[in-house]
């Protein structure tokens, strides 16, 4: 047993509607690593989590979690993982304390040990004061925190968190971030997190895979991903989106399709050498008589990477 995840050519096609939710996905996560799966809604993040946590079977490929095959040895996998799905899984008729104790008992803890564990975990997720209240009376944020406590009961080697902060207010989100970082740093827990928030992946994860339409389109450290798209970004705004459209056509002709992205009157151009090419862009557009409202030169953020990569995919798909 170890805290790693190995995924090879994983695929999942749902019979209903013949939906290919995950297509030939491969990646590996080392023990102690904080890994993020970043992608928009419907990209295949949750399906991947459900396969890796033994809830559903893949239709192709293989995956090992904690050194055990998820299809052949699901019981072993379940012992070593903690899972927080997108929807919390709590029984509203029990109190917070009762639910944690039940979970601990199911994992084979003795009665006394289960009680101790409940005290510890309630403290960690700051629910000690609400421990004796029924979960039905908890707020959304409290339920999320309790759900996280439940995933930690068995001191998992690997934590799977499917969009753990979606819909949370900033203070609850920060509380969860902090706890995840602590677990990763102090306990060496491997973390597999999915998120739609670039900011979340950027500030938490050691390594990120970007997934879109069921495929991994890029993998790397936040730094590598930023470097991958060229060093600089030129952002131009125009007075109208007619101007930005014309400018887009002109620049695309000169610089290639994937390097220019238009969002209404805003254009983002990815360039290797910012200072030099900024002047060139301005000169070209000026020569065509297009009035530029603002120009900005910056280093890329994950948002930019995400925008560029998903845009590249669109271009490819439309080109097919």
């Amino acid at each position, binding site marked *: 047993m170890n805290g790693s995840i190995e995924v090879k050519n994983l695929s999942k096609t749902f019979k209903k509607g013949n939906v290919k939710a995950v297509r030939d996905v491969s990646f590996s996560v080392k023990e102690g690593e904080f890994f993020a799966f970043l992608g928009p809604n419907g990209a295949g993040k949750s399906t991947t989590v459900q396969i890796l946590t033994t809830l559903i079977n893949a239709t192709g490929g293989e995956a090992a979690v904690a050194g055990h095959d998820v299809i052949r040895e699901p019981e072993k996998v379940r012992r070593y993982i903690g899972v927080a799905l997108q929807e919390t899984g709590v029984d509203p*008729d029990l109190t917070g304390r009762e639910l944690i104790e039940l979970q601990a008992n*199911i994992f084979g803890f003795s009665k006394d040990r289960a009680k101790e564990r409940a005290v510890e975990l309630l403290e960690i997720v700051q629910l000690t004061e609400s421990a004796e209240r029924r979960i039905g009376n908890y707020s959304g944020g409290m339920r999320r925190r309790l759900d996280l406590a439940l995933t930690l009961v068995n001191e998992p080697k690997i934590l799977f968190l499917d969009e753990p902060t979606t819909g949370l207010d900033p203070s609850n989100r920060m509380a969860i971030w902090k706890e995840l970082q602590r677990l990763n740093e102090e306990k060496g827990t491997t973390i597999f997190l999915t998120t739609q928030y670039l900011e979340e992946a950027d500030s938490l994860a050691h390594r990120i895979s970007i997934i879109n339409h069921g495929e991994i389109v890029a993998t790397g450290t936040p730094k590598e991903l930023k470097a991958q798209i060229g060093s600089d970004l030129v952002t131009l705004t125009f007075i109208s989106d007619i101007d930005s459209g014309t400018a887009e056509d002109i620049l695309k002709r000169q610089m290639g399709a994937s390097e220019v992205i238009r969002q209404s009157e805003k254009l983002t151009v990815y360039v290797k050498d910012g200072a030099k090419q900024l002047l060139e862009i301005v000169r070209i557009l000026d020569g065509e008589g297009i009035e530029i409202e603002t120009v900005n030169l910056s280093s890329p953020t994950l948002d930019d990477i995400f925008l560029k990569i998903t845009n590249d995919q669109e271009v490819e798909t439309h080109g097919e």
Partner: protein
Amino acid sequence: MGNSIWKDTWLITARSIKTTLRNPFSFIPNLMISAFFLLVYEGGLSGISQLPTFEGANYLAFILPVSIVSAAIGGAGGAGQGIVKDIENGFFSRLLLTPASRLAIVLGPIIAGMLQLFIQTLLIIGIGYLLGLEVATGFGGILFVLMIAIGWGLAFAGYSAGVALRTKNAQAAQAGTFIFFPLIFLSTTFVPYELIDAQWLKIAATINPTTYIFESMRTVLIDGWIFWDLMQGVIAIVIACTITITFAALSAKKAVARG
């Protein structure tokens, strides 16, 4: 780490019992309706037991099985409701993510439902005694009635759990419990078969397995140990349980499968 299937089943059952007790409105209405049947029908209809077809039988003993079956079906329906609630709350998935036995996860709410059924049936029989019930076969007869109630409840629990696991939806599971009405009322509910007037109702009563449950209970309550009259209830239970428990098992397999 890890428990035996018995420990898992016990843990999950205990939790189902706890949540049932914390939601008294999940069982009080059914218990009231069952007691209501007994009181109202005994109070309003007991005069018809003067008819020669009743051969001098006590109407209370005649109507008691209706009340018991109502309580049993209601209690057993708790099994399906418990499962649907877990599925909708995401707690069912939470349990599937633990090493707990898959069988225990499904069995827990069913056992709790059966226990609820057992207690409701006992209470109804108790009310019957308070109203002056006399049983031809004495204590043994009451045990037989309890067994039939549990058997019939088990068949219904299989049905309700099966519907819950298949549809995973509270409305659908709720709609599934409406079978309660034809099961109870399209039968020899108020009068013996010979006194049913409408031909369609006679046909319905013949098809309805509850009729055989009523008859076997009435036999021990009123007439005594008449083997083949008792066996019709037992046979109805065996057939119904075979069908509904198979249905529940297949639905459960599908619900915990990873397709």
